[in-house]
């Protein structure tokens, strides 16, 4: 890959270096003799170290050389070899300044004037107890050659052994593929590779080394099984194989390239390498090494020339092949400073996108404000203005959607982590589990995606640990041995709905209830519906596992999941059937920024209802309304009885319409499908609103999801339909048995569903 490609990182490097310099400076200013804070010293060291590291990548030799001096002294301070004195601190601060200068020269692309660093280097070296070299001799950059593994020292020894090795290899199996004379310009290498048994435990993988050898030329690989123990004694984590590789490579492939393959394992293996070249052109490997490897940081010149000359190498699949090859011509062709390969993606700081989101939000408000003023103008006039505004509204909406889509990510990034989790859980519990996922491409805001990981992890663990039966038990009751956990995602009503379904035993209600009573979560004798019992598992401190298992029974449980989900503006519910399994349904908003709403008025107050909750609004006829046990009004809507909730009663708003036949009923639906009729004065219109936090400066309120700012600058509350439903049940206008309510105010969702049945 050409060095030009690096230029794209230069800005990051300079930005980061500026931050690091500030860190170092702040640390240095606090550094004083006496109480030396080692964390601080380490932070300074790291800052300089990082600047040096990055500088090296861009070839800022002088800068790196200077940073190296600086770093060396900081390292001494770090190891307490150099005492912290005022003089030292002064010098270090000066060094930091010089480093800043060097960076700015590098950023400008200019050379630092000769001698810029001399005095400071001299001063720094005094602390190392080194002789002060002649000024002007700024330290050379740390020798790149020294950074490379050295390898050519012990040739004689290797060659000596290699002959025996070749013999051994040939005895094992006569070399058939590459017999006879070595073609001109080629070298035949024989590599005997006998790794230590523990090789795998350092994460090294011989297969990749053999593959790497193959990339260097035509290779014949023979595997030796002589050390393979009997099956009974076989330890899968140990390596018992060894190999002999006969490699016919270009003369350009030098010993260093081969040594490089074994760079990390040379100490742990018996490796013998020998070469045979055609008689006329003996290439002493040692020389080739020093000539080629010294300019270590330049692209290897050997690679492109070697490729066409060694056709077999091209057939091995090499992930590195395309990028360097593809990038080079472009970079060379353009020659400009933006000569990197054309990319179709850019990386953008999330803050910038957030600012954009905020601006779009302000724009939505401004546009609503203009619309509001326009409404006050005499009708029939300013037609162009009205049309223009309509266009603006459309564009604003599109802009909003585009901006939000930048932040959108498919949930697959979370789903893809689950198979591994399932495997681990299955192993830990001894169960057989099949994970089925669907809807991975469903997109949702990045922040939502990130926050899904923990809850999903927990829910899946819960399903496997508590839901699924062991394989034997499943077989006994006629289920497949392997349980299935189904993870799905879908968009529904402007929210993302994620379901975790298992085909296990379902929630053991008797056990759950007795546990809840035992823990004082439910009063003995309280009559709870099945669904209410199921929902007990969301109460804090609830755990049903008989034994605390490794997985989910750690005292944190579904209550934590619920709290996490709730903090994202989401909800979670559970549906369970004994013997058939459980389904957890989790719903979350798609974004945390803007929503389509319907503005309604009640008395002098205005509220926003999320459009996604609204089924329709209608003015009921007196015949549609019924009293229910004198406590609750219900209305017949679309052939279904719906409970009416008077918003003004619930919120204590004066001067509002109480008679639903004179006001309006907005039929709303929550994510779980249950419906409610909200009695309001008027529906004012549909509008995009920007979600503003009420909690940032105040706190959460029952029945209120958030707030927004309307076109006239006034604040309106965004209603939370599910919250309203729940409030209305507590306010006594409900048929739900009060005993249940007091025993367990929490679990009302399904009670409401029951109420939807015609009475």
């Amino acid at each position, binding site marked *: 890959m050409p060095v030009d490609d690096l230029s794209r990182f230069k800005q990051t490097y300079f930005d980061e270096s500026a931050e690091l310099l500030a860190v170092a400076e702040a640390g240095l200013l606090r550094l004083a003799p006496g109480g030396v804070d080692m964390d601080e010293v380490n932070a300074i060291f790291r800052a300089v170290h*990082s600047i*040096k590291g990055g500088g090296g990548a861009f070839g800022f030799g002088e800068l790196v050389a200077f940073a190296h001096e600086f770093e060396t002294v900081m390292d001494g301070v770090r190891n307490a070899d150099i005492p912290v004195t005022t003089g030292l601190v002064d010098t270090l601060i000066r060094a930091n300044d010089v480093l800043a200068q060097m960076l700015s020269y590098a950023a400008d692309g200019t050379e630092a004037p000769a001698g810029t660093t001399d005095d400071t280097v001299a001063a720094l070296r005094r602390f190392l107890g080194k002789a002060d070299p002649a000024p002007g001799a700024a330290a050379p950059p740390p020798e790149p050659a020294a950074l*490379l593994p050295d390898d050519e020292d012990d040739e004689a020894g290797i060659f000596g052994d290699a002959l025996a090795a070749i013999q051994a290899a040939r005895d094992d199996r006569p070399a058939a593929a590459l017999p006879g004379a070595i073609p001109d310009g080629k070298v035949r290498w024989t590599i005997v590779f006998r790794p230590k048994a523990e090789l795998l435990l350092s994460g*090294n993988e011989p297969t*990749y080394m053999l593959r790497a050898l193959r990339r260097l030329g035509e290779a014949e690989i023979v595997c030796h099984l002589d050390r393979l123990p009997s099956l009974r004694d076989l330890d899968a984590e140990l390596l018992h194989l060894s190999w002999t590789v006969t490699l016919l490579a270009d003369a350009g492939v030098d010993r260093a390239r081969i040594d490089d393959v074994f760079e990390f394992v040379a100490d742990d293996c018996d490796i013998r390498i020998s070469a045979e070249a055609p008689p006329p052109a003996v290439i002493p490997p040692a020389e080739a090494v020093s000539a080629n490897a010294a300019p270590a940081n330049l692209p290897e010149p050997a690679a492109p020339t070697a490729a066409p000359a060694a056709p077999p190498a091209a057939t091995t699949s090499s992930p590195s092949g395309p*990028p360097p090859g593809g990038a080079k011509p472009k970079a060379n062709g353009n020659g400009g400073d933006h000569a990197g390969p054309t990319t179709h993606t850019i990386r953008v700081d999330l803050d910038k996108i957030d600012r954009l989101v905020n601006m779009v939000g302000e724009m939505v408000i401004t546009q609503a404000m203009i619309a509001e003023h326009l409404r006050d103008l005499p009708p029939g006039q300013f037609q162009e203005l009205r049309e223009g505004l309509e266009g603006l509204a459309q564009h604003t909406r599109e802009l909003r959607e585009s901006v939000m889509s930048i932040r959108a990510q498919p949930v697959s990034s979370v789903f893809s982590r689950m198979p591994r*989790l399932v495997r681990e859980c299955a192993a830990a519990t001894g169960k057989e589990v099949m994970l089925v996922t669907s809807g991975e491409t469903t997109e949702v805001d990045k922040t939502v995606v990130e926050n899904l990981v923990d809850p999903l992890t927990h829910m899946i663990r819960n399903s496997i640990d508590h839901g699924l039966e062991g394989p034997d038990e499943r077989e006994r009751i006629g289920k497949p041995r392997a349980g299935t956990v189904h993870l799905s995602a879908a968009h529904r009503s402007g929210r993302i709905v994620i379901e975790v379904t298992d085909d296990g035993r379902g929630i053991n209600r008797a056990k759950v209830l007795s546990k809840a009573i035992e823990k004082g979560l439910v009063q003995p004798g309280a009559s709870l519906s099945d669904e209410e019992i199921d929902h007990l598992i969301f109460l804090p401190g609830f755990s049903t596992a008989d034994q605390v298992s490794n997985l989910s029974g750690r005292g944190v449980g579904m209550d934590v999941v619920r709290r996490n989900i709730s903090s994202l503006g989401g909800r979670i519910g559970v549906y369970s059937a004994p013997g058939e399994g459980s389904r957890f349904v989790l719903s979350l908003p798609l974004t945390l920024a803007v929503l389509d709403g319907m503005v309604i008025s009640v008395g002098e107050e205005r509220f926003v209802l999320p459009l996604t909750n609204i089924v329709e609004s209608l003015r009921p006829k007196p015949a549609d309304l019924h009293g229910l046990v004198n406590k609750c009004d219900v209305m017949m809507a679309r052939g279904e009885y719906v409970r009416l909730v008077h918003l003004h009663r619930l919120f204590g708003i004066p001067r509002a319409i109480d008679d639903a036949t004179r006001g309006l009923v907005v039929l709303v639906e929550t994510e779980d499908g249950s419906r409610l009729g909200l009695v309001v004065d008027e529906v004012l219109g549909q509008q995009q609103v920007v979600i503003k936090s009420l909690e940032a400066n105040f706190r959460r309120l029952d029945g209120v999801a958030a707030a927004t700012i309307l076109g006239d600058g006034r604040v309106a509350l965004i209603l939370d339909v599910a919250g309203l439903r729940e409030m209305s049940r507590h306010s006594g206008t409900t048929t739900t048995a009060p005993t249940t309510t007091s025993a367990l105010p929490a679990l009302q969702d399904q009670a409401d569903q029951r109420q939807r049945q015609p009475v």
Partner: protein
Amino acid sequence: MKKTVMTVDDSRTMRDMVSFTLRGAGYDVVEAADGQQAMSAIATRKVDLVITDLNMPVMDGLSLIRKLRAIPAHRTLPILMLTTEADDSKKAEGRAAGATGWIVKPFNPDKLVSVVQKVCG
């Protein structure tokens, strides 16, 4: 299937460079700014190779390597350490901790890719 490489470095520049280079070479890359972040990230997703800096705040590279090796699932996970320190003692320390190999900074992209291929294909 794409292999996933995790780059652990407190320097954004380094992470960017490693990511860019390896993505260009067909790998998926996840980033972590220190050992602790790396530990929590690796707990939730499959990683085929870890490339870690040694000098980092919170949890340094050697501790990260030791912690990873202590987990049975990661006993044979390839772990490369990034080091500017050319001295063999650092390498030895890394190997003792369980590192698979090392990459010497500064590195060029080709070198990075070839080392990565060397240990994770």
